[in-house]
């Protein structure tokens, strides 16, 4: 504590010095250096003149509430360039590719997982990730790579003045990676850690997501694993990765999108770094996998002891996790919006807290399920939509002895969707969907992803207002109609945990067909 005293004395001295300054008046004294001005006091403009000129703020939306339209261009090698005007000092720019684990059928699973981790490592032009990072840092940039089952996104947020540097880096990272043996070794470690960590964490969500997709699409296309199976980590080599890249990471499957950038500038930079500079791999003559996702339904059950998953001294309850899914539609299908409304109407979350008013505490999975059955730990609806198919599911957890009841409650909620839908809950779901859409689009990276994915899927980006109009048009009858169609599909079921009380797939099927079972009849699970 001696140190503390010394410091107090030091500070006292400083204060005295300051006091002396004040007594003499600042007029006769030079102003204090910036690093001595308390953060509660503005820097004096005379002593520290502003570097940047000020401009009046220009609102991003016109008087009609419509955002300025974006632009799309297609370049000579088939790559598409999309831009969206936006305010602020920073822009987000990135590459969106029609690639992901769904295309790994002819490869060992885990390619996408590896590529995701290898992103922004050394390239033809840049010696290391460090060099890329230090280039980005100069313009205040950060970068990231994410893949979903059917899309790869390499993106960065950066000061507008760094746009060219960013496109140059993206071009090299996407088309000209080195993939050295050392980098592969580090990637194996990182992938292994992620896989181990997912197995160890009390939260089973990533594993459930893998399981329900594999059940719904029979281990093919969208059902292929996204997480690298542990036995594949050793075998994935540079040549396999390069072969995959040459088939799927080709310009015609790519969109370069920018938010808050000049369109013509972006096009020029993309010409330089994506068109005029060739990829490091030779574009393959081999055809990309064209197979459509085939929804089959089915059961994936994983017996696992979850009675002691807590990482700390406070025990976690022993839970079994269940997802029941049915076939929905692709994001290009006319019924897609109705599924989004349905998803909002079902809502759900954890039984402990809905996260405050506005987080869907009056959605059906709360009012009909979590608030009624005290043993339910969580219940949430998801709608996974892809380019050619979709999966609507409810995922829930409860203690193992309630697995039978939980299955019954969830299937009952699904079967009930063909019945009456109240006006209030329906309008609430529509309003919440609209506000969620607009609130998500507050964030620049989200706008980027929206632009890039829409242009990749449908060649243009529709204004959010168009989606709002489409949402307004949905009627309760539309929900009943998609529910009827959905219930005609074979159910997909994924379950992880203690499976002693697991009903058979046949029973689940039956209870979904039996649209409005009276509670007394629902006894076959016992």
């Amino acid at each position, binding site marked *: 504590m001696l140190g503390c005293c010394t*410091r107090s004395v030091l500070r006292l001295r400083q*204060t005295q010095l300051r006091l002396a300054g004040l007594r003499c008046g600042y007029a006769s004294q030079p102003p204090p250096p910036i690093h001595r001005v308390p*953060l509660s006091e503005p820097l004096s403009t005379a002593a520290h003149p502003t570097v940047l000129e000020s401009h009046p703020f*220009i609102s991003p939306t016109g008087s009609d509430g419509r955002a300025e339209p974006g632009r799309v261009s297609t370049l000579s090698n088939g790559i598409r360039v999309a831009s969206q005007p936006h305010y602020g000092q920073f822009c987000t720019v990135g590459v969106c590719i029609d690639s992901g684990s769904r295309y790994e059928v002819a490869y060992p699973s885990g390619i996408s997982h590896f590529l995701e981790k290898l992103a922004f490592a050394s390239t033809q032009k840049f010696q290391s*990730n460090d060099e890329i990072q230090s280039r980005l840092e100069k313009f205040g940039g950060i970068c990231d790579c994410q893949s979903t089952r059917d899309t790869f996104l390499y993106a960065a947020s950066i000061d507008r003045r760094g746009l060219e540097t960013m496109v140059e880096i993206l071009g090299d990272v996407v088309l000209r990676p080195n993939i050295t043996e050392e980098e592969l070794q580090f990637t194996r470690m990182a992938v292994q850690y992620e896989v181990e960590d997912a197995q160890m964490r009390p939260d089973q969500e990533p594993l459930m997501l893998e399981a329900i997709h594999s059940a719904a699409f029979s281990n093919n296309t969208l059902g292929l694993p996204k997480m690298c199976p542990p036995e594949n980590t050793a075998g994935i080599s540079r040549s396999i990765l390069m072969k995959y890249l040459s088939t799927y990471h080709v310009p015609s499957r790519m969109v370069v999108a920018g938010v808050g950038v000049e369109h013509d500038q972006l096009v020029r930079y993309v010409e330089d770094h994506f068109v005029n500079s060739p990829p490091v791999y030779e574009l393959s003559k081999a055809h990309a996998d064209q197979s459509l996702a085939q929804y089959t339904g089915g059961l994936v059950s994983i017996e696992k002891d979850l009675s002691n998953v807590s*990482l700390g001294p406070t025990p976690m309850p022993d839970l079994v996790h269940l997802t029941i899914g049915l076939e929905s539609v692709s994001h290009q299908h006319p019924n897609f919006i109705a599924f989004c409304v349905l998803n909002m109407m079902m809502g759900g979350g954890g039984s402990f807290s809905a996260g*405050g008013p506005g987080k869907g505490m009056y959605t059906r999975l709360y009012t009909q399920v979590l608030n009624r059955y005290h043993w339910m730990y969580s219940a949430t609806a998801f709608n996974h939509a892809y380019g050619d198919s979709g999966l609507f599911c409810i995922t829930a957890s409860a203690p193992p002895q309630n697995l039978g009841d939980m299955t019954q409650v969830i299937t009952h909620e699904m079967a009930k969707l063909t019945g009456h839908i109240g006006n209030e809950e329906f309008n609430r779901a529509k309003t919440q969907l609209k506000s969620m859409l607009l*609130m998500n689009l507050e*964030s620049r990276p989200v706008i980027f992803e929206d632009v890039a994915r829409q242009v990749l899927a449908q060649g243009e980006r529709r204004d959010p207002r168009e989606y709002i109009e489409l949402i307004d048009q949905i009627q309760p009858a539309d929900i009943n109609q998609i529910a009827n169609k959905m219930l005609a599909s074979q159910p997909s079921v994924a379950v992880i945990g203690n499976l002693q009380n697991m009903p058979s797939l046949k029973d689940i099927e039956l209870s979904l067909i039996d649209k409005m079972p009276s509670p007394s009849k629902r006894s076959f699970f016992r």
Partner: protein
Amino acid sequence: MASWGIRGLAQSWGQLQQAQKLIVPSSRGILGARPRPQSTHAQTDAVSGNVPPTQISVMDNGMRVATEDSGSPTATVGLWIDTGSRYETAANNGVAHFLEHMVFKGTAKRTQNALELEIENMGAHLNAYTSREQTVFYAKCLSGDVGHAVEILSDILQNSKFDEQAIERERGVILREMQEVEMNLQEVVFDYLHSVAFQGTPLGRTILGPTKNIKSINRDDLRSYIDTHYKGPRMVVAGAGGVAHQDLCQLTQQHFGQIGTQYQAEIPLDLHCRYTGSEVLARDDAMPLAHVALAVEGVGWTNPDNIPLMVANTMLGNWDRSMIAGPSNASNLAKNVSAGSCNSYQAFNTCYKVGMDASGPDQSTPLAWVHSGPRAILKSSHCRHHSRTCFLFEQDTGLWGVYFVAGNMQLDDMVHFITEEWMRLCTTVSDFEVDRAKNLLKTNMMLQLDGTTPVCEDIGRQMLCYGRRMSAQELEKRIDAVDAALVRDVCYRYIYDQCPVVAAVGPIENLPDYNVIRSKLFWNRL
């Protein structure tokens, strides 16, 4: 379309930004520069880049209204109140948090149910949080609903019923929340860290309070807490997104105009919370990994040394095993530990506000008077009120350190690498590294401000912490003013030969003894 399948990237970026948040102080300190009641006036900061300017007005009752109007279709508005668990006593510790729960339980006008439905039906979100020094209530809504949202906020803050039965019910909910917090080991370790670093002071207590208090807090406690702390000059109304400044001022006048400035009872003083170098160990060999925080005393929000400390903090950075960067990471510490010394680590810098020390030397009274202007006048009036002589000497505090998760056999290495890096910061850190960290820090701070809620939070927090809004340009200039010599000087003053504070939970047999760690914070050579 994919606009609401967007989650993927948006979330991962959210996480990235959250990790960065640790670099920025996680708890919110306040410089309670509480202006005395003034007539309403607006000031507009000219800001460069196409970013909306901050507009600030002061209401008759001292409440400040601060907005940044970007014209977007959504908005966030809320109240930032200069109060939290730091203002509690051992007897009522937990009341601030209890109150946060109770304001959602119905008012004279609205039942709990009606309140929740009203929010849900307009597609808005209502949120609240309590930290050691701030209590925040905010709503996120469509910009057309701002008036409605402010009315609801004013109703729940001023007219809550605090129904006895609801209070009884809420005890159970809070106790369950406590269990959830205890499952989060990072929170547990930080509570432990505060309990010893600030032992015997209000900052050492938890936000939730002890079980005994949760079981006994009653309606009168809640009422008197509001009466004592919810005063105009301690409240800020902040707004961001589609929110017009004049409208928000009018709404504030209309709905919060009756909030007073007078204290009926004793005026709460911000007493300095003394830091004590010490340790707390909770050994549990059944846990798979040890969770450890190692820190020294940092500074409060307004201290200009905060900027070089943040740069130093950025240099330590954060790392976890799923990050592949490995030996090419920008952070020297990450480079050293990535060979296998821990599972993850994060550097943190927590700031608290300036408190008064009643034990300063005699001459400090006039010092404080001159030094801090209106605030000191307010303080001296406290003193007259209590008719006792107190020597006012302003002191701020904070915690600056590293939190890490590692196996038992890695702890010795990990402590070694951290302290070695700290010593390097005090003695030999180079301009090259400092420049990189400065760029990174600027990026982290700027990129956080994406979306109406983060911007609104930044406005509210700064208004309470700094008593003003610091423009992005000013922050940039302050960071630019840092060089290696300054980092060394500041780190030397706060780290070198200081008594650290250590909190550790889990299999920690191998954690070096406190005196060993202490002895790593100086060299017998230079």
